[in-house]
């Protein structure tokens, strides 16, 4: 349970999630970094639970963190909430204390969601060689920007957050395992160590962090799921 002495940090924690969701993975890492115990509830998104629909009536998506019965939705909102509630207890602060550095971290976290993910998603979903080639080109441009961002944010240290994992690390770090599945199947090498030495090394370090390692989905299983999804006809819009 949370190390914080009585009050704000109290209250039972439950996380509604899906094992294949990078956004859920983010929250699990953040909770793990704080040494927080919680009840994890795997949702069937084809058959959403009453609890999920009640807790996130607006988007009906996971992750949802329910703290003392009160739901918090949207992964980046949840990460900042966890950071603020359990500030000063076990584990690193996800956001630095300086307002300008905080703005920089928020900027890159937003970039991951608004630019990196759509580009990567296009690659992830591509079915023809042509689609894949175009998507790869776009994705690589975005990864190039992130390589520069890493140099700027890390200032020579191990993570975007400096010595310890921060908001941007967790936000971007939710994607490498999926990037590896795509690389396996498509023969690509997104985090190419020659082109993107900073990011390639960072990804290894991030995946080795204890709190990450403990909740990372099985790579083999993920690859099988990915292969199966490419073999099926194009699905309706993804709901997570």
């Amino acid at each position, binding site marked *: 349970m949370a190390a914080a002495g009585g009050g704000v940090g109290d209250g039972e924690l439950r996380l509604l999630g899906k094992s294949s969701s990078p956004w859920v993975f983010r929250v699990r890492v953040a909770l793990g970094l704080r040494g927080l115990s919680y009840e994890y509830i795997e949702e069937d998104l084809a058959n959403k639970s009453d609890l999920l629909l009640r807790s996130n009536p607006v988007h009906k998506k996971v992750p949802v963190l329910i703290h003392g019965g009160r739901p*918090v*939705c*949207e992964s980046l*909102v949840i990460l900042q*909430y966890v950071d603020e509630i359990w500030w000063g207890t076990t584990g690193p602060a996800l956001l630095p204390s300086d307002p*300008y550095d*905080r*703005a920089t971290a928020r900027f890159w976290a*937003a*970039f991951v969601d608004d630019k990196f993910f759509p580009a990567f998603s296009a690659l992830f979903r591509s079915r023809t060689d042509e689609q894949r080639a175009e998507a790869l080109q776009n994705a690589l441009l975005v990864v190039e920007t992130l390589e520069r961002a890493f140099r700027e944010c890390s200032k020579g240290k191990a993570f975007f957050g400096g010595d310890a994992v921060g908001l941007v690390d967790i936000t971007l770090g939710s994607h490498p395992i999926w990037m590896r599945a795509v690389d396996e199947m498509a023969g690509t090498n997104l985090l190419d160590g020659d082109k993107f030495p900073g990011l390639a090394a960072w990804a290894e370090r991030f995946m080795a962090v204890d709190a990450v390692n403990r909740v990372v989905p099985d790579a083999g299983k993920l690859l099988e799921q990915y292969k199966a999804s490419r073999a099926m006809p194009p699905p309706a819009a993804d709901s997570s």
Partner: protein
Amino acid sequence: MAGEKKQGLQLLGFWVSPFGQRCRIALDEKGLSYEYLEQDLANKSELLLRANPVHKKIPVLLHDGRPVCESLIIVQYLDEAFPAMPALLPAGDPYARAQARFWADYVDKKLYDCGTRLWKLKGDGHAQARTEMVEILRTLEGALGEGRFFGGEAFGFVDVALVPFTSWFLAYEWFGDLSVEKECPRLAAWAKRCAERPSVAKNLYPPEKVYESICGMKKRLGIE
């Protein structure tokens, strides 16, 4: 404000952009003086391209020359860099702050895009956009609840995030053949309440001007 101390704030914006207006409203709410630099988006300045090389968009806040980009990030930055002034995000209440961030994010994810589809599309696309717009406005009204503002009694983060779009309501009504007053009376009342605040009155353009500018955009894009 007392002793206009130059804190070195500049804002790169575009007159009709609701995202730029969020920042202007936040600056005024916090009593901060700044230099406004209107940008020509068809012919982007060196300053803009240097300050926002990643997105090349406005708004950009420059604080003693250091750029902050993305409107909601700028608003949070102002709140955190100038904590002595009125707080836009509720201080000391992480759950209320999470709710505020959620709803500001909702405005970002839903409103502008749906509004754009409303004036760009015809037929089924337009009908779909109209249905969504009503749903979005009703959802926002639900979030407002019985409070004077989204945060309760005090004008705050979500109000700042949404209020610039109130100048776009008229355009949504004309393009969508809907009535905000009829669909969401409490939201309409909130909009009127906000319009009485100096920061809002000063920084928003009349709805007719916004409508005109959209018509201009449509013409340039060759849309009937």
